[in-house]
């Protein structure tokens, strides 16, 4: 594990750049797919363009931020209970 040359191909910076690019292409294609599928919404808004995409993104960001906020109050060192 001395230099970049010996790293596993999957963790080389070049591969990771390509993974990001591929990811963005995939995300774009998935959003565009909404033009081609026939939505059958249950509550109107879930049939609008890009709903599942933005809903997934926004709720996940919200959950991470909420967890972060809760962590401020409830996080303790993992040795907290060691003397019990």
């Amino acid at each position: 594990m001395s230099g970049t040359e010996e790293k596993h191909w999957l963790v080389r910076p070049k591969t990771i750049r390509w993974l990001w690019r591929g990811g963005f292409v995939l995300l774009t294609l998935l959003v565009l797919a909404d033009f081609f599928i026939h939505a059958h919404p249950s509550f109107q808004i879930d049939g609008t363009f890009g709903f599942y995409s933005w809903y997934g993104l926004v709720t996940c960001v919200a959950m991470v931020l909420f967890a972060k906020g809760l962590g401020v109050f409830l996080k303790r060192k993992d040795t907290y209970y060691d003397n019990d």
Partner: protein
Amino acid sequence: MTMTDLPPGLVLLFGAFLLPIVGKNVRSILILALPLMTLGLVWNLPNGTFLISSMLDYELVFLRSDPLSRLFATVFSIMAFVGGLYALKQKSVMELVAAFVYAGSAIGAVLSGDLISLFIFWEIMAVASTMVLFSVGGKQSYSVSMRYFMVHMLGGSLLLVGILFYALDTGSTAFTAMQPNSLGTILILAGFLINAAAPPLSAWLSDAYSEASFSGTVFLSAFTTKTAVYVLLRGFPGSEILIYIGIFMIFYGIIYALLENDMRRILAYSIVNQVGFMVTGIGIGTEMALNGVAAHAFAHIVYKALLLMSAGSVLYMTGKRKCTDLGGLFQSMPITTLCGIVGALAISSFPLTSGFISKSMIGQSAADANFMIVWFFLLAASAGVFLHAGIKFPWFVFFQKDSGLRPPDPPWNMRLAMILFAGLCIGLGIWPEFLYNMLPYPVTYKPYTVTHVVNMLQLLMFSGFAFFIMLPLMRRTLTITLDFDWFYRRVAPSALQRLFSIIYKADNALRQAFLLKLNQSLAFLSLKHKGTSSLLSHTYPAGSMVMWVAVILAAYLFLSFIH
């Protein structure tokens, strides 16, 4: 003897006690054969109730066989088999015995047709699962198993008192659908919910499951919570309160798993999350929802065991459990990584995995029943599952940074167990009919429509995108997050300690004050007498008094003579 003379659970329950007395080779055979025998018995059960006896005025039904009870008994038997295969090299025979008694009693519980025999198996499960934890040995394992045992004894007591009230109210102990509208049924529901890790007593699960052995956790993850799901499904379908409890559990599981650093605690919180989906479905209570719950319980047992087996393999090979110590293991543990990823995809309900065909039924049932807010919550939660378990677990354990650890894959039996369950996760995803045909109600649901597949992929991929752009916020730290167990591990003990120290101090102060008063009174008395008459007081020696008495007597004698 026919198939219905022997409750399938008893094969495991009593067969377990053969394990310590036979040799190593026979033990390995028994570990694999006993669950298969049980599975054979379950599959050959005809519909109906059997093995009926009576206790006092009540009827005990040890065997109620219908599609729902057979579905759970089937997946429990499969779990015992694959769990046994995974634990084949487990050195602690005590854990294996406990795990098999535990599995057997869980099968006994789901096949029970009345509340009394259910309660008997329920309590055997509590003791046996405690022994699985206890078998690890050491001080920490002792304290964690005692905490676990206390919570389950509380749940068992609530259940027992509930059953007694219910029997008084209705004159029957038959286990049928109820409503939580009397003291008896409310207590029964509370007892069930404690085993489902519902709030407020949900912390027992993450507290205990992360402390069992590499194989013990695999057994623990399957039986207790899913037996609770079964009894809720049987006993309280359509009880509205379960929707709210379930939604709470779903988000509690996600939030706590996001904050967690211990890999098995991440997965433990994610059990609460998944059971939350099932509890919500039971609350919705339509045929479609209940089908979805039963299917999801089946799928969940398989992929959760798979995830915990891959975490257990990492623990077994490295002895490490914290995300901060792990990472980069994919290079030397390809099979464990791959199986872990399959489990992670299944729990996230990716198309072509078991989670996709089961969880989506619950979501669809919420939409069909017009529970709009519930539906939006469930959708957010589906995205959240990918976030907290689907990506977080494999990313931090197998990828992330390079920890420098290069352990090989675990021994063949552990690899085989993981491959079997990974295959089952994908197989159920490709051929959902196998599972749908076992469900209690006829299934008309079609999971694979283009719209559904695309929508699910959009949701999950953007959830994954959120994970990677928020990665700096997700950095693991050497922390735990306080949970409800804080109240009984910290607040209650320290409050009691404070109370005792107050009582001690008050008692001490009272004694001191009393002694002080006593001394003061004595001093006051002596001072008083000294002050009023110095003639007769203590400053004169006793001898002088004797002399003066003698003088008075002599004078008296003298006067009597001259009289």
